[in-house]
């Protein structure tokens, strides 16, 4: 079976500084991967490069998404193909309500798939169902996208988008950072409920906490722009107990 995501020897720079130095990663449908690592290891860069962030340049290597050349696709094409990045710092959009934005985004994806677009009324029904499924209320649907929201609310908003867009590959870029215990639980449970056999999740995180709510199949340690260690969920626990220092001595995995 073709892997959902297959990254080989990926190098990327920002302002001529190399941040990713040869990433290799394979993610199959139905799996949850955790990418852990200290600050500055390149975790967020990897997430953003996969979503096509304009500040980064890929200098070497390949990334295939469901068999397609991911790096040849524009950011909006990646999204329509089913790649979703939950931003570490979601951007606010003046004047545009969440409901309006979500419908436009979902319709862009549906149009690409050749499915009929949703009218406002139909869409509100769907949205209600999604909110119920993840156990949230509709208080911020009529508020502008991310504007005036707290850090936690913004993260929650990303997860709502994830629920509505139903991507094949969800990358959560430090979605857990800055959340209090209750908010983390809510977000993690929502993500866990969205797991599907035909989709995969990559959780980029600095902390072990979120992995107590979403059990990963594979844990990777990123250091100096490379994956230096991969293992089962027990690796996450080991990192929690011993910190990241010890991983630096390990040889990068092939």
């Amino acid at each position: 079976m073709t892997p959902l995501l297959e990254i080989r020897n990926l190098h990327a720079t920002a302002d001529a500084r190399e941040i990713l130095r040869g990433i290799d990663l394979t993610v199959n449908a139905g799996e949850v991967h955790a990418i852990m690592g200290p600050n500055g290891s390149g975790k967020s860069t990897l997430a953003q490069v996969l979503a096509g962030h304009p500040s980064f340049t890929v200098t070497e290597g390949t990334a295939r998404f469901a068999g397609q050349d991911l790096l040849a696709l524009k950011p909006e094409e990646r999204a329509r193909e089913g790649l979703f990045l939950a931003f570490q710092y979601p951007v606010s959009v003046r004047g545009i309500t969440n409901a309006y934005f979500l419908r436009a985004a979902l319709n862009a994806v549906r149009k690409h798939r050749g499915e009929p677009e949703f009218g406002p009324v139909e869409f509100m029904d769907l949205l209600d169902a999604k909110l119920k499924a993840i156990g949230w209320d509709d208080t911020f649907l009529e508020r502008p996208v991310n504007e005036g929201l707290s850090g936690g609310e913004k993260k929650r908003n990303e997860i709502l988008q994830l629920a509505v867009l139903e991507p094949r590959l969800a990358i959560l870029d430090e979605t857990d950072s800055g959340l209090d215990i209750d908010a983390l639980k809510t977000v993690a449970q929502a993500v866990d409920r969205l797991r599907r056999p035909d989709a995969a999740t990559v959780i980029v995180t600095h902390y072990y906490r979120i992995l107590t709510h979403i059990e990963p199949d594979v844990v990777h340690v990123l250091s100096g722009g490379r994956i230096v260690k991969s293992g089962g969920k027990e690796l996450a626990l080991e990192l929690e107990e011993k910190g990241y220092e010890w991983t630096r001595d390990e040889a990068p995995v092939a």
Partner: protein
Amino acid sequence: MSGTADVTDRYLALYRAFAGNGASRSPVWLRDMREAAIDRFTEMGFPSTKQEDWRFTSVAPIAEAPFTLSAGPKGDLASATAAALRGVATNAARLVFVDGTIAPQLSSLPSLPAGVRIESLAAALARDPDLPREHLARHASAETSPFTALNTAFLSDGAFISLPAGAQVEAPIELFYVATGVEGEATLSHPRTLIVLGRGAAATVVERYVALRDGRYWTNAVAEVVVGEGAHLEVYRVQQESRSAYQVATTHAVQARDSVLRLHALALGASLSRHDMYAALAGPGADLVLNGFYLLRGHQHADHHTIIDHVEPHCTSHEYFNGILGEQAHGVFTGRIIVREGAQRTDSKQTNNNLLLSAEARADSQPQLEIYADDVKCTHGSTAGPLDEMALHYLRSRGLSPDVAAGMLTYGFAAEIMGRMEHAGLRAELDALVRTRLAERGGGGRRA
């Protein structure tokens, strides 16, 4: 500088002709008021950019153009104005003015609650002048503004809306100031609006400035708005003058205790426009929202000059102005907030956000806070810049094409302002109007 004396002489001559004509039949108090106003105008003359309040706006094009007073509507205007009047609810009270003079055949007045007056100012002054006289030119002072002075000097018609205590008018009251913009005639009109709401009254008023043709004319408008104790007034001001026209306007509002005023101001037309808004929060608990949006392109210039005067304690003023500026357009915003000594617990907020769609577009924004009380909350902020690259990427990462993403971010500047409009029907109508204008950008549409 152009010969300032020549310019004022020209207006003095216009005034003499006007005063010697139909205006001579007016009551003495009104004639005296006009005389004082033209005197004041000739003393002041047109402002120059050397004056702080006019630093960013040159009215030289207005001063130099040989405007003449409109001779009054000619021919059959019913069909011509029908298009301009579309979208108006049939059950609404409507006053239509053509080049400043009431057009009764285009106006309609359904049955109104007892004591409510919606009529032309000329009719009100002839029929029952006590109430209009009590307020007319008492608020918008001819002393400090040459344009208000000029409007007052030529005061002959306009709209008079008055609600007695407790009265409510549900449907929006529509005022149309229609400019015919006749080819080759540089006409000048002086629309005047007086709105007086008694204690606990409630109304919605729409003040529209529209043009039948793309003529070069000048509208010099003044509106006085008196909101009584506990009254609730929502005013929609929609400036859609011709793209060749000039508009100078003053809105002067006075709010009594616990009154609520929402003033939504849309500036879409005119080659050069200036709107002075003054609001006095003159009773404790008064609540004001000034909510403005301007959409400019080509060489359009729009200047919003606001002064909010917190006279009494426990008042709230929230001021939001957003602009979308394309091509060589120039937007100016001045937000002066005065918190008088003793106006404690003032809650004042001001924002001005400008989207610059081209490198030549320009926005000047200046907050001016004068605070003489110590227990107040005053915030202000302004921005000017192109579309946010990070926001564009964010929207694209959700599947939207660059065009759709840019359109959405642009529209957001308007939508933020529209979202504060309380009347759903008007909000929808004006939202559609702005969306159409924004869509014209892509098609290279030049008309406002």
